[in-house]
């Protein structure tokens, strides 16, 4: 009895710690949601209110007239889905080569490839800009998508996962006369759904949040992504917080949707890939 009682106490403790984590994580979201329907004067009121007594929902229609939010949302969707698909294809093919093909210098090449992880993205901004501009791709979807079509993180994640697939399966397929593209497509890919799902979420979310490149690679309002469009609400002297938070609520919706849909494979993929810290 005593033992069972202590176990409950420990459970309560864990529960309390986890609850603190939940509050800390959800607090900003709650504030965002609450602020999006507050009157302007109540935003920084003290003591702060979480919910206003005088909710105004007009912000949810005003956001579409204040900035071209609908168009920006569509742009973000197009760009993020395209980048996600591109990374899934490019990274899985590269990972297949690094994991399943035998060739000279493979490990050295992979190390160089991994070194790209160490290059901070800011360093590549100007060369990328010059390249994309020379190609005449400023203000185009390809200019927004292609610089992110490959990812060394994604390749690494998938290579680690592909390595865990039993060699016997691949060898059996080869004995049956399967070509590499068949092994890749019919054996490796279907067995790696968890890792592919994780990469898809990771790529989608990080691109959805990407601000620097879409800011630089677009100059026309019609090509802005959600992050850039929302930043126009934050002025030099004045910020319309309720409207900005309204936009933010709408902007996080797809991310939350993607995460809920792929949650299981996201966590499974990250632990299986041995990249839990990232």
């Amino acid at each position, binding site marked *: 009895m005593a033992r069972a009682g202590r176990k409950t106490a420990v459970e309560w403790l864990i529960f309390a710690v986890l609850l603190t984590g939940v509050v800390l994580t959800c607090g900003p979201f709650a504030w965002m949601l609450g602020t999006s329907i507050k009157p*302007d*004067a109540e*935003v*920084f*009121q*003290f003591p702060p209110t979480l919910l206003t007594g005088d909710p105004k929902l007009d912000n949810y229609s005003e956001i579409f007239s*204040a900035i071209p939010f609908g168009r920006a949302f569509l742009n973000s969707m197009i760009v993020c889905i395209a980048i996600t698909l591109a990374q899934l294809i490019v990274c899985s093919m590269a990972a297949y080569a690094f994991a399943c093909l035998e060739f000279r210098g493979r490990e050295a090449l992979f190390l160089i490839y991994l070194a790209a992880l160490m290059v901070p993205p800011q360093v590549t*901004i*100007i060369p990328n*800009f*010059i390249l994309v*501009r020379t190609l005449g791709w400023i203000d185009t979807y390809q200019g927004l998508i292609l610089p992110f079509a490959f990812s060394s993180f994604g390749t690494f994640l998938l290579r680690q996962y592909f390595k865990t697939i039993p060699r016997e399966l691949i060898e059996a397929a080869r004995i049956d006369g399967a070509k590499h593209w068949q092994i890749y497509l019919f054996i490796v890919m279907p067995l790696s759904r968890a890792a592919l799902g994780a990469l898809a979420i990771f790529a989608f979310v990080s691109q959805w949040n990407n*601000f*620097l490149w879409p*800011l*630089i690679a677009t*100059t*026309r*309002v019609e090509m802005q992504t959600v992050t*850039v469009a929302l*930043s*126009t*609400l*934050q*002025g*030099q*002297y*004045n*910020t319309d*917080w309720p409207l900005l938070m309204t936009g933010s609520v709408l902007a996080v919706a797809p991310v939350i949707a993607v995460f809920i849909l792929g949650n299981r494979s996201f966590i499974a993929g990250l632990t299986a890939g041995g990249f839990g810290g990232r």
Partner: protein
Amino acid sequence: MNRLLLVTAASLAAMATSMTAAEAQTNLVFAYWGDPAELPPFEEIVSTYKAEHPDIDITVQHAPWSGYFTRLDTQLAARAGPDVFFITNVPSYAARGQLEALDQWIADSGFPIDLYNQEGLKSHSYEGQLYSIPRDSAPIALYYNSDAFDEAGIDYPDESWDWNALREAALQLTQRDGGRIARYGLVMESNDWPIWVRQNGGSDFDDSFAPTEYLLGEPEAVEAIQFIGDLINEDQVMPSFQESAQSGGTTQLFVSGQAAMAITNAARLGTFAEAPFEWAVAPLPTGPDGTRVNRIGGAGFGMNAFSQNKEAAWDFLSYLAGEEGQVIFASAKAAAVPAMTGSETVREAFTAPFAEVFVAESEHGVSLPQFDGYVDVTNLYIQPALDLVWSGEATAEEALTAIAGDVNARLAQ
């Protein structure tokens, strides 16, 4: 077969003519930042100019303040970017050779540069050359909540106010609720302290553009910084700058009634219009001996040194920054205090509320330091020292004299 050839030839010819028509038109790119409320005058100038110059097409690139310079810096680093752009912090761009020097263009076209606030031109120059034409001066003034003054039974601020009058009023206007301050007497911007130093007869350096000596350790400067520090920590009539930033800044604190007076620039006129109380604008209080000093600066318009169409770019720039543009900016709803104060037309067009206060203040404007290494000196030494004073951890004298050796060594480099 022959018919087909003819059709092809005809369509080729048609393409050729349409191509020459397109080539005859000059394309200019014009970039600017601004909050949504500030954009109409930019758009009006572009459309008016295009209507008068059908051979010139202008593409506009707008970015919010937060992202504008990130994009511009990248474009300029790639030797690309807009032909004409809205710009601040001119010397650092000029030093990198990214801005076209304007003196020759001004001389050749007879542009009336004499009509501009001459002190204001200094911060748009680098090594004796002018690199941008200022759009506005950005003087600050004292906004006050008239209702709060009536309630406390104090006279409204006027041009006779000095630091002590300001402090007295702030003490009376501050409302304390136990340990908490329900309403501060005053709030100001974190980067306006150099004005206070100058009002007290001090300075930060011996020369704002080619400094050789650091002067914030001198008694006049120390006294001014200590005065601000005391408003925060001793009198507790003003929030610390960090607290102010976390509460939405000067704008939010004043509009929500959490600060009874605010010292800030004319860009706030629009936002404060929505405040649920009566308010007005008074001149900036003077130093203890009556010295009037205000800040000047503001943003201007420059030309890309790599522009392919400099002739057209100058023509548009001189319209944008000249009398036509100044009138449009001065009469806009979110007006900027015009830089071309020598022009009667521009002064008459500036009819914003309290316009006369801001124009008068801009006459007392002085240029603040701008030199290579200023950002380094500020970030490494001056700002950390000031933060110690603002937080009450050190007196102004301790903090500002302690860094003198380091700053002077950095200036000597």
